[in-house]
């Protein structure tokens, strides 16, 4: 996956770094990109890795960010899956774990109604097989 490479300009946590280049902000954990934000589109981010959950990512997952009071809401609009956090990073991290939880729940169901079926189809366009350990 092509990632923007730039100068680390801030630390978001002990093991996380933020890099910025040409308006794109990328958050890394060690050398793994977690998500990318385009500062020209301030309300959007993209999930670029699910490595921490052991899943492959087929394509980047678009995330829309909304501010509600002191809450940040992160939504994967295609499947109407949303959660919130105390910061943008917290909200996107929370959304990643929720996407994986719902992907696993829906994948293991035998009888899905119309909308859960559509949600699973959406998730399958983005989330691949569980990566096999080396």
């Amino acid at each position, binding site marked *: 996956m092509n990632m923007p490479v730039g100068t680390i300009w801030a630390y978001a946590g002990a093991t996380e770094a933020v890099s910025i280049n040409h308006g794109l902000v990328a958050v890394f954990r060690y050398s793994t990109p977690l998500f990318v934000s385009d500062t020209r589109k301030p309300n959007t981010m993209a999930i670029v890795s699910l490595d921490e959950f052991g899943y492959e990512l087929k394509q980047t997952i678009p995330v829309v960010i*909304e*501010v*509600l*009071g*002191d*809450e940040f*809401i*992160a*939504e994967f609009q295609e499947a*109407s*899956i*949303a*959660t*919130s*956090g*105390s910061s943008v990073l917290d909200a996107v991290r*929370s959304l990643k*774990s*929720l996407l*994986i*939880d*719902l992907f696993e*729940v*829906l994948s293991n*169901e*035998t*009888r*899905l*109604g*119309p*909308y*859960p079926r*559509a*949600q699973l189809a959406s998730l399958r366009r983005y989330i691949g097989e569980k990566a096999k350990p080396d």
Partner: protein
Amino acid sequence: MGKKQSLIKQKEAREIADKLEKDSSVQTSIRTGRGHDIVTVRRDTELLATFGIRRSKSEGHGYIPKSMHLSERQTLDFARCSITVTEWLNVYHKRSQSHA
């Protein structure tokens, strides 16, 4: 920061989960996910709806209306029992069809 605060707090999120669990017209289960309690709502073994309720110390749960395909007002009404589970499922189906 946005000016408007969400009216949906952890208390309302729990009331919604409790109401779904108690309603005999559906079978609701709540399982522990990584950072959320995952609510699944079934009728006659068919999964009709699922969403997550975040387990966190923060009070705000402003994302719940999006997950339930309701307005904030309707979500509060659902938590406070002036909208029934069947009425919610009708709205959910109608709105989700326009998304699907």
